[in-house]
């Protein structure tokens, strides 16, 4: 079957998987047959798309904070807010293959697996990057340098470098294999600490390389107005990878007050990003990165992650859905009708909707 041409201006939500609790992370498996997701309910949820099957893996004692599939093997790595990483052979068996009990002091906020599949790399609250063998979870090394918690990791497409982004807006580049720091990039625009704040706000919340490795997109928000609501202007900085200089700064046209939690490059140099907003609709945004204005956006609830299907034509977003009780105060709510907020895993097809689907 031929692949339809990429056309983000005609993207449409083709699949919706509803879930009764809030999900913050969701990824396609490397063969595109599975989706794994995690969030508030401590479970690792798996959907087998072609068979319409679903199962949940039990192992985390708190919210699932990060997950990533192995690029070659049937392994899934999941992490949580208590510093635990599990490796699952998700197609067979429901118990972890191995577990790292203390991968971080607290929250493991980011996981990546190197392209050769040998190394799992984790980072989070303790500001130390740790490298583990994917085969058995044994630690290979750790990378020190960040002074505050690390929110995001990404691997260069050539497989040679890792980048890590922290709360202060510092991005560090590391060599894979030698495990040495190569240089730092400045994304401090994405960090705010005003005189009357009692906490730092923002940070490098997302990182993504272009397919050719020439650009690095760095997401977050700038100009936070307080450390309470934490409202700011969602912002993407596009770095030229060779020079390490910012080439462009991207924003959105619509309303949003939260950071870009997720970025993904598509074909044709198009970048996709998703942000969040308080009690309103957010948007999935697309840019040609040499233009500051988006080329297209789609209304969506707040989104916390983005995953691109191996066919390069489907984009997965774990999306917030209100349970109808959000906002201040109980306003007559009772234990019986005060419902949790929920999620939908929304898959956007990045091409024109076929006529039969439109009619359907």
């Amino acid at each position, binding site marked *: 079957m031929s692949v339809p041409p990429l056309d983000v201006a005609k993207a449409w939500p083709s699949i919706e998987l509803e879930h009764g609790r809030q999900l913050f992370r969701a990824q396609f498996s490397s063969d595109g047959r599975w989706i794994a997701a995690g969030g508030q309910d401590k479970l690792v949820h798996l959907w087998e798309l072609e068979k319409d099957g679903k199962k949940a893996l039990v192992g985390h004692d*708190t919210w699932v904070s990060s997950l990533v599939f192995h690029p070659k093997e049937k392994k899934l790595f999941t992490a949580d807010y208590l510093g635990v990483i599990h490796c699952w052979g998700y197609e067979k068996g429901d118990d972890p293959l191995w577990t790292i009990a203390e991968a971080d002091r607290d929250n493991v906020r980011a996981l990546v697996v190197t392209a050769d599949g040998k190394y799992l790399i984790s980072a989070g609250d303790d500001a130390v990057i740790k490298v583990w063998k994917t085969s058995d979870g044994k630690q290979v090394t750790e990378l020190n340098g960040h002074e505050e918690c690390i929110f995001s990791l990404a691997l260069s497409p050539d497989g040679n470098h890792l980048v890590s982004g922290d709360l202060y807006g510092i991005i560090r580049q590391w060599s894979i294999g030698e495990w040495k720091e190569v240089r730092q990039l400045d994304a401090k625009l994405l960090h705010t600490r005003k005189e009357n704040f009692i906490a730092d706000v923002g940070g490098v919340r997302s990182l993504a390389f272009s397919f050719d490795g020439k650009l690095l997109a760095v997401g977050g928000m700038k100009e936070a107005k307080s450390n*309470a609501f934490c409202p700011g202007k969602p912002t993407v900085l596009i770095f030229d990878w060779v020079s390490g200089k910012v080439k462009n700064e991207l924003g959105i046209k619509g309303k949003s007050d939260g950071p870009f939690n997720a970025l993904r490059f598509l074909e044709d140099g198009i970048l996709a990003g998703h942000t969040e907003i308080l009690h309103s609709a957010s948007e999935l945004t697309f840019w040609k990165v040499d233009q500051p204005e988006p080329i297209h956006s789609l209304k969506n609830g707040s989104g916390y992650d983005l995953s691109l299907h191996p066919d390069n034509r489907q984009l997965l977003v774990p999306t917030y859905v209100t349970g109808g009780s959000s906002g*201040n105060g109980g306003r007559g709510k009772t234990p019986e009708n005060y419902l949790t907020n929920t999620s939908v895993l929304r898959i956007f097809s990045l091409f024109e909707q076929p006529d039969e689907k439109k009619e359907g």
Partner: protein
Amino acid sequence: MLGALGGLAGFGSLLHPSIAKQIKEKKKQVCLIWLDGGISQYESWHPLPESKFAGPFRSIKTSIPGIHFSELMPNTAKIAHKISVIRTMATKDPNHSTGVPRMQRGDPLDRGVDYPYLGSAVAKLLGPADPELPPYVWIKPGNGGFIHREAGFLDARYGALALGDGRPPVHIHRPDGVTAELDAARNALRQKANERFRAYRNTSDIDAYETSYDMARQLMARKDIFDDEKLDPKDRERYGTHPLGRHVLQARQLLEAGVRFVKVNSYHWDTHGDNFNMSQRLVPQADQPFAALINDLDDRGMLDDTLVVMMSEFGRTPLINSRLGRDHWPDCWSIALAGCGIKRGAIIGDTTKDGAFVNGEGYDVGHLFHTIFSVLGIQSHRQKYRHKGQKLAIAHDDCEPIKEVML
């Protein structure tokens, strides 16, 4: 410490009961730590990790068997046996603009007046603990000054002397070129001018002006209170170098010096967005100085006479919103009290399993004010304010003290 009274302590049994009571009342002091915007009960006093509304943080054991706090409060968890926590506050008002004054004024029945904030009420009802010091000092970020609005319908002199960023009032130090005699003459001239001015104008405003001046003069005589050089560096470390830590440490110094009521404000707790990242950074800023203050007051033998309250205008929603924040929740939330007639280790309140709602009635601010006044030795139902010939209740007529947390 109240040195002048300390010498009488051993003779309490020889004194006339009414005098002994007066002396005891004189010793009562209060520290109110106000976390403006609303600390999340799930990320502090009532974590409920198995609740569908729980955050991601650990629940840790406290010094009371079977009682858990959030891992973000490790210091307070160790002194849980010294404090009380009410987990079933149900306070009706979900708005900052009305919730803050309601929670600090106690919300007596509406009789068409602006009731005083708690510090002003205590300053009026108990007077200064040390006549040489202002009765009500408010340590807050930002600007300072004399905030007479806190006094409500009371005379403006019961307002708060605010120390902006914990700094002493400006001009606390008499310039070198002004001798004590010259300064006294200056003040006499000022007072004379005020008397003349007072004859034709609203006396409350003049009272406020004079009070602020008098307080500045009082503090000039006690400028040692503001001498940071005297602080033990270990104390600074224990309380924390962040604003709330520094300000609670200063509150301890003011209490030790004999100030009747000290309020310490911290702002920016209104975590509608990024609640979990923010709580991770904010809650320890309250935990550290709160526990240090309780321990220090206890070690100094002051805790039994000093009431410490840590609270906000409401808690935060069980539901987690689209920005991973929590909104305002007055329906079921937590406050902490310690010292001065408050039980040690009473963690009370029956909530639904998920912590979202109170089982039963819960406690409103009227109950809290009756409790606070009662442990300070103020008869909260019998004692009244007098205002323009009208007797006014000092706390809500229909509420009672919360006996579960009182000795």
